[in-house]
Every structure is written in C-alpha cells, then in structure tokens.
C-alpha cells in the first residue's frame, strides 16, 4: 500500500494552508486517516498508548449490528441497502459541511449513527424521509451541540422522533410483513408502490386489539416492525458482543431490561394490563421484552456513551428510568411504542443523574488525604 501513501502525500499540499482545496481539508484528513493510521507520537509521559482509538471504538458498534443488518436484508429486501446509502449520504453531507465550517476533523461518530438510523425505521419509508430524518437528527441532535462528544441527545433518535411527530401517518403505514420464504427477500425490492407491500400492523399494535403474535416469532424476527429491531435473537447476539468488548456498558442494558420486565410483570399481575389471549404473568412480560424496539434500544441506543450518564451508579438509574418510562408509554398513552421517547427522556435526565452521583463522590473525596 506504499503507492497509496505516495498518492496521499502528493495531493496533500492542495488541502493545506494556501492550497486550492483548503476548505476540504477535513474531508481529506478523514479519508487519509481512514486509510492509514496517523503518524503522531506521544510527546510526554505516558510514552505509550493503548491501541484503542475512537475509530476502533465506533467500528465495534458497526460490527455488532451486522447481524441485524443482514436480517433486515433478508426480511425486507434490497430496498434496505438503498436506505443505508441514503442515510450515509445525507448524514455525511451535514457532518462534512459542519466540519468544513468549524475547521475540525470529521468525527467517527457519524458512521455509527448512519448505520443505526435505517435500522430503526419502518422498512418501506420513502427514501426522502430517510434522508430528511437523518439530516435533521445530525443537525439538531448533534452538530448544534458542538458535534461528537458534546451532544445531549442520540442523533438517530432525534431524527426518529422528528419523523414520528411530523409524518405520523407515513411512519405508521410503512411497516411491512417480513418475507416468510426460505430465501427471504434477498433479491427483491419492495416499497410502498409494490403490490405485495401490504402495510402490516406491528405486534404492539395488534396487541392493542388483543391479537398476540407468538413469542417465538418475535424472538426469531419474522414479525412486522422497524428494519433492524424484529429479531430479538440477533440483537442479543450483537448486543452481547458489544458488552464483551466493553464499548457498551452492561449496567445500562441490565437496568433497562430488568426494570422494564419487572414493571410490566407487576402491571400484569395487578390486572392493569390484561391480555385475554395470553394468560399468565411472565408469558406476556417476556413477550413485551421481545416486542418492538426495546431490546434494540437497550443494547444499541441507550448505551451510547456520549448521551448516557458517565458514572456507573447513574447508569443504573438511567436504565431503570428508560425501562419504566417505556412501559408507561407503551401501555397507558396513545403511542404503541415508547422506546424512542423513553431514551430521549433518559438523555435529558442523564446529566442530572451524573450530577447527583458526582456530587456524592466529590463529597466523599473531600475527606480524603
């Protein structure tokens, strides 16, 4: 790969101070450092560094959603590829524009948002809405706060929240019954205009009418829902990988799912939620864990290190709030799905939770030494 490095060195002057394409230096820098590790060295103690950098950190998230991405291809067809491309194109444009204006490097954070974004959308959503939503999410949810590391809200969820409020009809009508063929829809394109695209209700909508989808179907993923969230099995697989690499913190995940499960079970046991077609307490509670976007949100959205609390104690509280609020929104409001709102609410509360834990720790530190 020496020749490529030579090419980069050759075109470099164009992008530096005084070059013709100086404005595009962030784009050039991002590309260069994507291809080749930077040559910087430490200047003082400590003289060595851990091999982990932010690129690696973020690519772990991308690897962990690969199973979900393949599942989305399998269940909903090639159109999903178009959604990914649109998502990256629109989001990267916003990101690059801001980098150029701010004269900062392009951050790796977007590559994660770009792949998570189509996974939380209904599979036949018009492509222009995919682009608009991600642009809105990155612009309002991230760049206005100062870019990666300084955002308060998860950009993908800000985009989804925007779409859910601005285009509720299209969002609700863009769900698609996944393919039940063995070959799936790997070679077919299904969007709103195609004949076999019959908008199908998600399990949570059906549950409102007391029509419960079998839990096993939801575990494997052959149910209607957002592109990446249908298969609980693959989400747990990818999420488990993310926990093992310690990019995501297990405390958030455990707290979210546990509090969700506990509150749902408690509500069912006290007859606040009644499912005639599925008796018992734990059956419907487990069903709820697998339904909708809870697992996807718990593993991939709530664990975003930037928007979740930093301290471990606050992560527990954060997870508990997300789990509990999701139950409340799902069962007692007009919305059938509440994970997006619950996590955004958690994002708002996260700094306060951190503040509480930090003040306790600082008080304890005061008596030291």
């Amino acid at each position, binding site marked *: 790969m020496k020749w490529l490095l030579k090419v980069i060195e050759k075109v470099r002057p164009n992008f530096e101070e005084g070059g013709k394409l100086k404005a595009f230096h962030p784009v050039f820098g991002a590309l260069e450092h994507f291809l080749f590790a*930077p040559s*910087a060295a430490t200047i003082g103690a400590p003289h*060595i560094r*851990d091999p982990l*950098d932010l690129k690696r950190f973020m690519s772990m998230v991308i690897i962990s959603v690969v199973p979900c991405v393949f599942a989305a291809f399998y269940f909903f067809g090639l159109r999903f590829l178009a959604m990914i491309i649109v998502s990256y194109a629109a989001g990267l444009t916003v990101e690059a524009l801001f980098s150029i204006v701010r004269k900062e490097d392009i951050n790796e954070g977007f590559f994660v948002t770009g792949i998570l974004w189509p996974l939380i959308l209904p599979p036949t959503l018009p492509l222009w809405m995919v682009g608009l939503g991600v642009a809105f999410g990155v612009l309002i949810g991230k760049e206005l706060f100062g870019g990666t590391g300084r955002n308060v809200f998860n950009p993908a969820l800000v985009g989804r929240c925007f779409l859910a409020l601005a285009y509720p009809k299209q969002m609700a009508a863009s769900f698609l019954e996944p393919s039940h063929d063995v070959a799936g829809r790997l070679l077919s394109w299904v969007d709103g205009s195609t004949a076999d695209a019959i908008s199908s209700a998600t399990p949570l909508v059906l549950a409102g009418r007391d029509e419960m989808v079998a839990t096993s179907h939801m575990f494997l993923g052959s149910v209607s829902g957002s592109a990446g969230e249908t298969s609980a099995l693959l989400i747990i697989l990818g999420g488990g990988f993310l926990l093992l690499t310690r990019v995501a913190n297990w405390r958030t995940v455990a707290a979210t799912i546990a509090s969700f499960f506990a509150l749902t079970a408690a509500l069912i046991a006290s007859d606040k939620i009644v499912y005639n077609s599925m008796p018992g307490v734990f059956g419907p509670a487990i069903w709820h864990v697998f339904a909708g976007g809870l697992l996807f949100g718990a593993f991939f959205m709530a664990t975003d290190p930037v928007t979740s609390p930093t301290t471990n104690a606050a992560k527990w509280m954060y997870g508990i709030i997300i789990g509990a609020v999701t139950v409340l929104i799902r069962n007692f409001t007009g919305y059938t799905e509440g994970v997006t709102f619950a996590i955004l609410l958690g994002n708002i509360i996260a700094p306060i939770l951190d503040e509480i834990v930090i003040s306790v720790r600082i008080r304890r530190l005061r008596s030291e030494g």
Partner: protein
Amino acid sequence: MRFRGGHNVLLKGRPDSAIKVMPEPKVLYMPLRSERFTFSDIHVKDGQKVNGGDILAKDPDNYSVPMLAPRAGTVRLEAVENHIVIEDVAQREERADIVEEEMLHIEKEMGAGGIKRYKLLSLGAWQFFYDAFTGELPDPLGTPQAIIVSTLSLEPFLARGDVQLHRRLLNFTRGLEQLQSLLEYQPIYLAMPNITSEFANLIRNQIRGYAWVKMLEIPLKYPYDNFAVLARRLDLKAGKGPVWAVRTEGILAADRALTETKPCTVRILSIGGTGVNFPSHLKAIPGYPLKRIRDQHVFEPAARMLNGGILTGSILSEEAQGVDVECRGITVLPEHIDREFLGFVRPGWDRDSYSGCFLSSLRKDFRERMTTALRGEGRPCVACNYCDEVCPAGIMPYLIHKYLYADLIEEVEQARVDLCVECGLCSYVCPSKIDLRTQFVEAKDLIAKEKEEIRQEQLRQEEARKREEEARKQAEENNE
C-alpha cells in the same frame, strides 16, 4: 480505602533478573538536575581533586541534600553544561570519611538520634526518601507518623526489588532495624507482593520476628506500589504529619550509611523496553556516561530513551550525558512508526488493549512490542468512563478534563485534582487520546502557584496592617 482501578500494561522488554556490571568509566558526568533536585550550590572548584564520597554540590531548596562524588577524580565544572564532570576516575571506590571532629560536634548538638539523621543526609541515603503524599523530599529532622517501605516496582520498567535484594537480604533487614531506631513507636509498613515466590517467602521469614514491621501484601497491579496510593490505602492522613516512604535501594543505602558509615553510590538500575536487545539490570554509579549504556544496549537507531518508567518517566534529552542521582531505570522505546493500512479494522491478535475491542482479549496475557505511537487521533471526550475505571486515586479524570476545558479552576480543585498520583493510566487508556496526565500536572502546578500567591498576598496584607497599627500607635503617642 481499598485499592481501586489500576491496570498492568504488558509490553515486551521486561528486564530479567541478571545484573550486569558495567565496565569502569574513565569520565563521569554528574547531571546537576534530577527529578526532584537541583544542585545549584556547588562545593568544588574547577580542577580540584576529590575523593569518593566528597560533596560535589548541594540542593539548598531540599534540606541541602548533597550530591556525592561516586569515585575519586578531578573535577571539571565548565566542560559540559549543567553537569559536573569528573575526569581521571579512579578504578576503585575510595572513601572519604566524615571528619571526626564534625561528628563529635554534631553528636553533642543533636544526640545519638541526630547523628544518625546527619549520617543519612550527608552520606547520600536521604535522597531515597519521599514524602508519601507529595513525593517531595521529607524533612530529615522531622518525625514521621509512619514509614512505608516498598519492595515493589510495578511500573514498566524499573529496577525490581527482588533483583536489588539479591544476596543482600541481611543488609535489608539490618537497614529496617536502623530505620526503626530513628522512630519511637511509629509503625513501619512493608509493602510486599502478594505472591508466594521463593524470594517473597524468604523476606517473610526474615521479617517475621519484627513486631514493629507490619506486612502489607499488595496485589501486583500498577500503580498499587505508588506511595500516595499506599498511604491512602493505610488510611494515613496528611494532616497528622509526614509519612516517609522509601524503596528497596533506600533501605540498603540507609544500612550502608548507618551501619558502615559509607556513602551509597553504587546502584542497580534497570535497562528495559522494546528498544533494548537484552533487557536486564545494570550495576552502575551516578554519572555513568549514557552514551556507553546506549552503545552497549540499544539497537534501535531511532529510539526514545527515558529516565524512569514508560508511564511516568521523562525523556532523556540530547544534553543529558550521565545517569542522574535519582535514576531508577532506563527505558528505551522505538520511535519508528509504521502507518498501517486500514489499521483500525484489523483483528488485533497482537495488540494488548485495556478494552475488549481486539481479538487479543481471547488470548492469555502476552507482551506487546510497543512504540511511541499515539495510535489514533485526538478527539473530544466521549465519556467512555475508562479513565475513571483505571484511576487508582478515585478521582474522575473525565470530569476534571471537562472542568479544565471550561476553565473552571475552582471546580477542578474541588474535584481533588491534588489526589492525582500522576500514574498516567488515564492518558494510556483514553480512546480519544486526550493527554489527561499532562493536563492534571499543569492544573496542579497552577493551583499550587495560585495558593502560594494568595498566601503571599495575605502576608503582605498582614504586614501592611501591622505597619498601619504601629503608625497609628506612634501617632497616638505623639498626640499625647
């Protein structure tokens, strides 16, 4: 407090326990500066002949701690900047005794305890003592609330206690006894590795009879051997007086000074790191020419030589010609940096990472060949919390970083940046490559300076008030 955080950085180039005796040098270069000391008060003249053990210079800011001539020779003051050069170095150590009269005088003035302290200071053993909380040189005439003795050196790579104690265990226990005789009832804590090696058992057996030595079995995790961390682990409070802290070489030096009344000049250093062909230990004297060490041990053409360990050591600049008096080890790291193609997507079987993001986390512990590469670009903090997890002091590095970024010095102080032990682990693990350690060191300096300024200001005000009062009194008297 219990131990928290910590992380062992595993890299190639760990010195083995062999001790190589360096050939006798012809010229010695004594640096006038070391980590803690600046020997500005020079006691010798250009061209003067000195004996081994003669005082070359003193540090007036640190209780006049002396720099001793390790060998006899002729002094050259101007030959190399910031160094005292000793030429025509004698092959064998020649000893200059403390003058008998002086001894008698001191004994009369300070008593038996005083003379011991005087010996420690003037025979070069005192420089191995630290104040556990600040890391500074403690007052030799003060009374500590406790002494912490550590045989561990967990930072890669510094001279190891078990190597330094090789065949000198008796000297060590005798040194402990000598130290104890300086104290009244204060305890001596001996930090030991919590493993059952032959060597550790040997020490345990030796120490068992001493009721005044309290054994502390320390897990072998960096930086649990740090004196500030140990002091906090022992619940010693800075307000109750100083805590003396000393490592193996200090105990051996104290034994030599107090039992034999001989200066301690020969020391055992480590030479390790990825850039060294045979990482081992060296028997050398202060002032030993670095060039000879380099020629003999370093094979990398572009290598960074460090005075001290990899995480806290300082770069030995081109100017430095000799081993300084505080040097505990020399570490060499290659500077050569390969620009890897698509490095961040490689599986990483051969990378040792704190996180689990590399395939190597499936492997047993192994040692990586590391260079000085930053291995990534600087990025804003993403609040991954790794720095908090590894911090042995229990402060929140990301939080202090955030405060510093916003210039909130008061909050930085409240977040107890002063508890930072400067172990460097937070900088090491940071995926955003933020230089947290440097920031904290600077912040600590800034806060200390501000406090000093406030103190000075208060003194000035006090003085002004006194003068005013006096003037008023004067005026009243005049009126009467």
